[in-house]
């Protein structure tokens, strides 16, 4: 018998955690297949497709944080979540500022660089 002697609570925790990884993997798989499938097999308008890809990516990132990194909204994990939210805030300021400044510069001075 290679399992440790598990208490009843541990056994419950174990099946819950296994389910969590399986759910995470299943959801991530679906959220990967949707954008790849649409890009490969459909002639969707580029604008809509970009939106679908971005939406799937954001949801998949949340899925990975929730099911693989075990970051939840439970009160006892708030520090990890706060750290993520603060990092995202800093990133939003820096990335948003970079894009704003540079694309404004392109618009005024280098229209060739605009996509």
């Amino acid at each position, binding site marked *: 018998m*290679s399992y440790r002697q598990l208490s009843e609570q541990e056994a419950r925790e174990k099946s819950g*955690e296994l389910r969590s*990884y399986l759910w995470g993997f299943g959801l991530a798989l679906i959220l*990967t297949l949707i954008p*790849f499938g649409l890009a490969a097999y459909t002639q969707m308008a580029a604008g809509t497709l*970009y939106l679908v890809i971005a939406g799937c990516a954001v949801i998949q990132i949340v899925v990975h944080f929730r099911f*693989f990194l075990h970051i939840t909204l439970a009160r006892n994990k708030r520090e990890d979540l706060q750290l993520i939210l603060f990092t995202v805030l800093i990133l939003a300021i820096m990335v948003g500022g970079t894009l704003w400044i540079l694309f404004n510069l392109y618009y005024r001075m280098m229209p060739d660089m605009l996509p």
Partner: protein
Amino acid sequence: MTTTTKIHPGHTDQARPRAHHPGLNLGPAHQESEDTREEMVFGFWVFMMSDLIVFGLLFATYVTMLGGTAGGPGPSDLFELKSAFIETMLLLISSFTFGMASLALKYRSDRKVLVAWLLVTLLLGLGFLAHELYDFHKMFTEGGVPSRSGFLSAFFSLVPLHGLHVIGACIWLIALLGQIAVHRLDPPTKTGLMRLAILWHFLDVVWIGIFSLVYLGGIV
């Protein structure tokens, strides 16, 4: 450090054990050096978040350079949907197998299953790297070298940095397999596995951004 269970009012379901750090917590059966493990894993989480800022800004740089192909090959000439898909699958499955390794560490007393899952993860990671290097090689032969244009410079600072992280994670995994063989599962080895799990899952999160923005965004 108390080990009591905290339940906040209004929370009616099962009392959950307190989580000490991000990632899978090993729980009461692995009490030895739980305090240092909390510090070390949380400290590693702080490092991961600073790494996230580096990647985020390289993504921003990449987007600002999309128009700067300077007459050279662009995204739709260089990227292939099929190879991006294969790399995505390899990394996603390896993330899942590392999760299975974490569960084996938490609930099994022997090392066999743990080592087996870790080896599968390592092989998938190495497969990802091999495929990515093959991709870069093909880009080089098509004239897609980093010095060709601003777009390619931005691409080659973003995607290979992720690959470099995967190389580092694979080396770390090999080192941990050595530690498991020599020291069995002592507290430092367990803590190392917890931190590597966070790095591995985090690298998969960064890859979501890369395949969505760089590959899918470039091909559409």
